[in-house]
């Protein structure tokens, strides 16, 4: 581990930057010290895909990992330093969908939508790719800045599942990083993908679901300006309008109470018994 990452970057050997060993050597795990970060990275994913394992690998924390669903109930936060940048990493509760139907999913959705992370890493289970891609496409409706962490590749290999990673990345228009986080495999590549998005070296051109319909567009053009007038700092009023038309109760309630867009207030409402996020023990 280098104490002075600037020396590395001033040398700037291109072949060096692409080498996984070089990238791993530049990871400095900062534990729970999330003060003074440059960028925010969110970890989103279906339950039981290894989000917390990725979180621990990057932060050096011991966020409780276990092979059961619903283990991470609130956001956990940690930090890491990589090649001159400090990142706050937010581990979100497992979600099948961003059209929330549970409190945990509501917390995940509110953070991706209103927390405005610089990068959203969607951790997907390589052995259940089809179902996991639902969440990827939903995330892409909210933000372009998505990286897919194709985790559990070791299990996929064991089941003789082959995935054309490059084709997947091309079709989605975003980086796809094959990983086996339990073994530390793919962590350096994930770091590089995150870096490329925050630095602008990779500009995502995501595939988005096409909702095109005339009556829907009419309803949206009526609704979106009203939402924008009421909540001027909202990052994605169009998405909120779509959810309203869908009859999403949590969004309707947040608008009634005026808490829409305020992640902390919305979270407190979703989980009344919870005082603070970050139920983690330090190593």
């Amino acid at each position, binding site marked *: 581990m280098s104490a002075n990452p600037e020396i590395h970057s001033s040398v700037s050997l291109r072949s060096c930057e692409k080498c996984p060993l070089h990238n791993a050597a530049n990871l400095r795990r900062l534990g729970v010290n999330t003060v003074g970060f440059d960028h925010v990275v969110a970890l989103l994913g279906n339950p039981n895909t290894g989000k917390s394992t990725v979180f621990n690998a990057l932060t050096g924390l011991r966020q409780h990992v276990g092979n059961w669903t619903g283990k991470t109930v609130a956001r956990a936060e940690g930090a890491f330093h990589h090649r001159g940048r400090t990142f706050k990493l937010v581990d979100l509760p497992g979600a099948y*969908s961003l*059209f929330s*139907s549970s409190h945990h999913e509501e917390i995940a959705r509110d953070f991706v939508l209103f927390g405005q992370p610089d990068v959203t890493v969607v951790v997907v289970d390589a052995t259940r*790719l*089809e*179902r996991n891609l*639902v969440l990827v496409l939903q995330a892409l409706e909210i933000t372009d800045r998505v990286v897919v962490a194709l985790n559990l590749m070791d299990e996929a290999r064991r089941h003789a599942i082959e995935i054309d990673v490059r084709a997947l990345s091309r079709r989605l228009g975003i980086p796809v990083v094959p990983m086996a986080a339990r073994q530390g495999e793919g962590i350096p590549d994930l770091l590089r993908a995150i870096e490329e998005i925050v630095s602008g070296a990779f500009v995502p051109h995501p595939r988005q679901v096409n909702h095109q319909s005339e009556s829907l567009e009419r309803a949206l053009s009526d609704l979106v300006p009203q939402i924008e007038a009421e909540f001027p700092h909202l990052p994605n009023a169009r998405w909120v309008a779509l959810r309203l038309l869908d009859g999403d109760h949590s969004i309707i309630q947040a608008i009634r109470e005026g808490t829409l867009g305020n992640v902390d207030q919305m979270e407190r409402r979703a989980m009344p018994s919870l005082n603070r996020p970050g139920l983690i023990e330090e190593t």
Partner: protein
Amino acid sequence: MSAMTLDQLPQGKVAVVQSLTIQGELRRRLMDLGFVPGAQVEVEMRNPLGDPRAFRVMGSVVALRREQAAGITIALSEESR
């Protein structure tokens, strides 16, 4: 082709989801879990009491009650007819 709903799917047969007649939040949920038109489903486990039953869809196992499964229209796929 006779219309059939998922609650009528016999064990050992494979079917393809045609449409969802169920409405509201549960419709959204079932789609999130993989019950979308075109998805293959089969019975994974039978409850001795008959309800709920577990279905395999998109690589995962999902348990549904009879009235929930009745909101999903299916067609038996060719090979299992």
